[in-house]
């Protein structure tokens, strides 16, 4: 009997001993996936990394709703967009989220998670880990680039270190302070991240959804352009072009009435694909841009349609973006492209008083945008003329994609381009003077209520 007692006691002891804490800590297959392996992080940055912004597309003066009937209809069906179009200093009430704020920050949480964790993940080579981290850094830099150019003043070297930028979260932390970093800090971080990323990125990506060396150079070029460091901007534009410089002659996309403009992912001119957040069904292009473009320009034929083909209909020409060409739901590309690099380089050359070289780069683009029969070389002899040609070409190349708004902001610092913009909407005239506070978007009241350390914009 004692033997049995002992046996049972021993059995009990064994159970107690095995039932240690490891039993509940090292549990395989819990039905939930956590970020454990390097491949998990790879999966994370394969997803929805493209959406970047929307409101600047409405705010820029390349878009203009001239038709009064349209204005009434638009005001009732798309009232959501009106504050951005009319440069209000409040976009949303205290309950409503600002999509252009939420979306980049939601992506930043993902990128921060990757940057924070990928290097200590399992089952991946160091080079793969570094590559994933570098991709996340480029994406994060791009998100901050968009945020700081919407919700903070344009970069001015004299005030950048005191101008308020945006909250800068660099770790996935739900408790961090949301106090706004200065514009300079944000720009410095963008540049720092991009430079950190470059060595570990491939020169060209497998798909233009993924960052590459070319993309990091291109974004550096754009960032330096916006800080008015034209030398650096030109250098990085060169670096990007050294890797990717393909321009496609648009005539090859038009075969009679059949249009074969490629999807973003297959578009050889795109260095890094980013898209607007959601899509518009209708955008009227400012008649001034249409005039500038001329009807022979293939961009007119590809990217504009008569207002009768939209709903609500209007008189004029509307922007007909990528999404309308195919059965795919592509959103308009707002990412980095080869023509942008040429134009950055051209602008820097112009500003450095190399008008001929600058205009020759513009002509290089134009040769691919017009049929040979319609093409005429442009030329400039002065810095101002050259700069005008470059900026006009930017208007032609990038209309309907929000670039114009960002250009307006930064070019306000050039007396040559600073001009007052007005628009009439539902019989009210709105005016935007150069360097107006209205060039800086309001930060949603909702976010300020949650975290009062976020100082609102004036």
């Amino acid at each position, binding site marked *: 009997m004692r033997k049995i007692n002992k046996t049972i006691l021993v059995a009990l002891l064994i159970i107690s001993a095995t039932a240690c804490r490891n039993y509940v800590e090292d549990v395989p297959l*819990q039905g939930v996936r956590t*970020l454990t392996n390097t491949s998990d992080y790879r999966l994370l940055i394969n997803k929805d990394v493209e959406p970047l912004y929307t409101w600047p597309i409405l705010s820029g003066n390349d878009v203009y709703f001239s038709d009064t009937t349209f204005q009434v209809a638009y005001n009732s069906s798309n009232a959501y967009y009106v504050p951005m179009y009319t440069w209000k200093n409040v976009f949303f009430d205290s309950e409503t989220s600002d999509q252009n704020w939420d979306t980049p920050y939601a992506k930043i949480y993902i990128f921060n998670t990757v940057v924070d964790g990928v290097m200590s993940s399992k089952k991946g080579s160091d080079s793969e880990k570094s590559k994933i981290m570098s991709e996340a850094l480029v994406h994060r830099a791009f998100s901050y680039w968009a945020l700081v150019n919407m919700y903070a003043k344009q970069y001015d070297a004299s005030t950048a270190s005191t101008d308020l930028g945006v*909250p800068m979260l660099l770790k996935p932390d739900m408790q961090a302070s949301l106090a706004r970093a200065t514009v300079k800090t944000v720009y410095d971080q963008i540049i720092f991240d991009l430079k950190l990323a470059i060595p570990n990125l491939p020169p060209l990506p497998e798909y233009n959804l993924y960052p590459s060396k070319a993309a990091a150079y291109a974004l550096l070029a754009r960032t330096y352009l916006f800080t008015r460091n034209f030398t650096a901007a030109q250098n990085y534009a060169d670096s990007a072009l050294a890797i990717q410089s393909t321009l496609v002659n648009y005539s090859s996309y038009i075969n009679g009435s059949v249009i074969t403009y490629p999807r973003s992912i297959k578009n050889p001119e795109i260095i890094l694909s980013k898209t607007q957040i959601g899509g518009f069904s209708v955008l009227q292009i400012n008649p001034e841009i249409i005039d500038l473009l001329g009807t022979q320009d293939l961009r007119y034929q590809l990217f504009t349609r008569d207002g009768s083909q939209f709903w609500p209909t209007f008189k004029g020409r509307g922007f007909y973006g990528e999404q309308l060409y195919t059965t795919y739901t592509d959103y308009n590309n707002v990412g980095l492209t080869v023509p942008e690099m040429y134009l950055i380089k051209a602008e820097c050359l112009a500003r450095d008083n190399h008008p001929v070289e600058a205009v020759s780069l513009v002509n290089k683009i134009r040769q691919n945008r017009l049929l040979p029969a319609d093409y005429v070389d442009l030329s400039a002899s002065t810095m101002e003329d050259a700069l005008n040609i470059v900026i006009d070409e930017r208007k032609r190349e990038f209309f309907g994609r929000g670039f114009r708004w960002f250009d307006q902001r930064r070019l306000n610092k050039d007396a040559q381009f600073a001009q007052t913009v007005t628009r009439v909407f539902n019989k009210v005239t709105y005016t935007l003077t150069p360097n107006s506070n209205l060039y800086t978007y309001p930060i949603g009241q909702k976010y300020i209520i949650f*975290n009062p350390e976020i100082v609102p914009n004036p």
Partner: protein
Amino acid sequence: MNNRLTLSSLSKLRLLSLDRPSFTKLKRFKQPIVFAIVLLQFGFVLPAFAQNLSRKISFELNNQSLNVGLDKLAKVSGLRVSYLTSDISKYNNITIEKGTRTAEETLKLLLSNTTLSFIVKDKSILVVEKAAPKTTPDNRQRNVVSGIITDSENNPLIGVTIRVKGENKGVISNSKGEFQIEAQDGAVLALSFIGFVPKEVPVNGQKDIRVSLADDFTMLGEVSVVSTGYQTIPKERATGSFSTLSSSDLSKTPTINLVDRIEGQVAGVKVTNTGALQIRGKNSYSTKIESDPLVVIDGFPYLPIGGENVLESLNPDDIEQITFLKDAAAASIWGAKAANGVVVITTKKGSKYNNTSVNFSTALTTSGGPKLNYLKQMTTAQYIDLEKDMVEKGFIAEPTNIYNSGLGNVSQAETILFQYKHGTITSAQRDAALAQLATINNTSQIQDNLLQKATTQQYNLSLSGGNETNTYYVSGNYYTDQPIYKGNINRGYSIMMNNTTNLFNKRLTVTSGLNFNSTNDQSNSSAMTAIGNTNMGLRPYDVLVDANGNSSQYYIRSTSSVLKNYESLGYLPWTYSPVDELNYSNTKTNTNNARLNLALNGKVNDWLNLEVSGMAERKFGETVLYNELESYTTRNMINNATSIDPVKKTLVYGMPLGGYLNSTYANGRSYSLRGQFNINKMFNNIHRLSMIGGAEIRETYAKSWGQARYGYSSDTGTDQAYNPTAYYTTITGGLSQIGYNSAPLVETTERFLSYYSNASYSLKDKYILSGSARFDDYNLLGVSRRKRAIPLWSTGAKWNLYNEDFMKKISWVDQLALRLTYGFNGNAPRNLTNVSLITISSSASTDTGRSSATIDTPANPDLGWEKTRVVNYAVDFSLFKRRLSGSAELYFKHTTDIITSMPINATYGFSTFYYNTGTMQSNGVDLNISGLPISGKDWSWTSSFNFSYNTNMISDSRFSNITASTAMGSSTPYNGYPIDYLFVYRWAGLDNTGLSQVYNKDNQIVSSKTAVTDIKDLKYAGRRTAPYFGGFTNAVRYKSFELSALITYSFGNVFLLPSIDNYLAAKTFTGFIGKQEDLASRWRKAGDELTTNVPGLVGGNYQGTSVNRYKYSDLLVRDGSYIRLRQIALSYNLPSKMLVGTIFRNVSISGVVRNLGLLWAANKDGLDPEYLSASTTINTLPPSPTYTLKLSVSL
């Protein structure tokens, strides 16, 4: 001196080492509980068997009572000693010096200074009064009288005490129920036995007496032992809130589903309309925790895998007892999963005192036909009138092509109306055609072709028996169940084997159990779809079969002319017939579940035993949907994926031409392993300590996956390969892809590690203190052990007032006890962790071919359990010789750390975040009263009533800001209101344009054109679940007949009258127009607003708001209270004399009628509030009455 052995004197009787076989009959008798308590109270204390009286024992007694002395003697010698407490209670202060004597000598010493003597009979000793000294010579002749004692069913009763009245001699009946006693001719024999009505039998010169004892029904319904799953506790020593149901309670309801058998029987236990059990209401509003009670079967939790309903998969006939653990003291031993209460199920075991007993029962149930006229619908003419209105006002667009799939299903009436619009028919032709349609009513065709009488068959066979060393219970069960909708059938069977073996002179007990069950269900949605309001629904004039008996065919995707055109091009037939579809698109579900228990219990000494037990379980289930090529779903799917080659003009199929087979599989395993010690010790006869403690581990693993096959044919069992990402051209010229439709492979593992202990101390059985503690650890990823593993504890006290001396004087109180408990239960979060969780998309990007993932739950470093604090006050009573008994409980539950999704600054990347932050208060009352107004040999009447009240309230000021639209959605917590609140608009009638109007908070009338956003503009209508509910059971027995009725009731909730649905709620309407009667009284012209409240068909921007405000207005709020006659049963037991000479021991026949309908309902709209689904689906039919005939025999 009262020698009658009544129940109330039970506690005075100490049967030491009672001859165990005496309880044989109790097993089949109606009181298994009595059996259990006797076993429990006496079984383990003095287990040894009779020894020779001459065995030498060492014995001493130091100034103690005879009672103690006899107990000690029995313990030391292993002898069985019986006595009446009343005989020996006067002998105290007995001292016997330590010495080694024979048992007989010791016994004689003990009795030396008393008037007692002892009788040795059948290895047991009966201590009795010595015969009174004869003062006068007895002239009457003394004979040896022998006899046999049986129960009313002619089974021998063993262990009955037989005494000669007026004398102090007595014997006990033997294992055949026989006895012999010396008695005079004129003497009277007094017979007594626990659980039976005592009886006095005059000898009258008989030599051979045959006596049958009647069941003592006072003990019916009286539960004496409760089980926590870890231990069984005598009810009189339990401090916690336990409610029990016995197998006899369960057997009264002949349903297949256990949950139906529980309904209305236990206070505080509610059966929700989804068939789930809810114990004492809700504790949490979190979506991240379990809301069902934990189910424990034979000591181990039964963890559902893949959302199965645990209780539905059990064979109710295998259940011996169900104990509901309701408060913290009862449930906290289960720790982390006990917050919603625990349902402890004990299965039947064999009896060691029995030869093999065979029980067979069968039940056949059929139902009345479903009553379609319950659904208040328009007449056909009214329906056509509504359609005409809709078409003429231009709210319905005619599908003239295939492009807009949303437009489909133009009805017969609409077709006629459109023909008139196109000018192909004249108005006279139109009116004639509509008038012709209006004469049709398809109700009887639906009854005949799509519905049927529900039938159910159940068969149960069980064998049980055993001997001293081994007992067994084996059962098999088979059922088929055919619901009212044709094409549906459920079948299942189960096998259970329970075995107990005693080894090494009962030092070691091995208990094992094996259970296997399997279900096979087939479901077909054709009938429900036809009655429903989707595009495939039937209009009132849509017949199912034509005059020749052929099934009617309808075009649904577009108009018939459009679709016939495609058919002529070679597309598959595009017609739909509900009758034909009964043969296709069946979903077959098969589940299998095997479970094995094994426990070793070793006795260390008479107060300590150790137990090692384990459970292993495997499950396998599959669900297969097969849409044959002939099925409408497949034909429609393939046609939509078929295009015409522009050059060759041939059909190009985008999908393999054949059937579609989608199977999903769920696989699981679970095991538990436990080591436990049990202490049961009595000190000095006044202190009793009962304690358990142990450790256990538990793992549940589940895996699910699926496979979609195209071009499948069951004839050949083959399917066709396809490329899920290849684009094909659809019928409309668009591009589409088949995609990945196989369910992804998902594996989950849950592990628990627990240490637990429960102890109770009782002083003189009057004052009882209990406490339990449990430390639970659970695999919460990344959560620190401090947060993850929590101690949960409870404590309780009980005062058995009736054991106090001052209560003894109050003769009408049999039992009175007060209880108070306090403690914590936990609830573990699900799918939440302290590290970020990602979801991998089920399909790769078609652009890059790469998979991707998203973070769906961001890391929360501060995540932990939800905790519910429970205080329970209770009183238990039994009065008037147990004629009236019951209990009343009052409880307060406070849940904290409810995992709540709180809004956060989206700048962090997420706009909501889960915190342990919410609180909630939930209080209630449970009341049980049982009465026995009549109790006699021929007549008895038992009655039991239970009442439950449960309320809850969210008390968290952060939930104060709620908008009108959020409150209408009614799932968001709102401070100061219960979680199931209903807010409605305050109806202000229609305006003269047919649009709804409501009052705002300032009592101003607001039109549909004005937004209502403030919660103050709404009215709080009440709770959607009933706070008051319960049941009332009455049973009347006359001889072998018993008639019982169960009434259930529910009070205090509100519901919204389903008034109009599938009605114009936007600018245009597509699909199926509703059939509800109220639609006929819609507003049509100015002035109608004075007589109707149903919004008109006005179109425009505000139609939707108008309809919505009407549907959710106080105008339609109804009181949901009702009283229902749930069941009436009549049973008949064949009298035992009829069975003499047959192989049958017992035969009973019963007839049960269920779902007899409402006795009373607060709403005067003829609606059954219990069978309104939460959504506005109007087509919920209350169950039809069912009729069951049940036969059970035992051999």
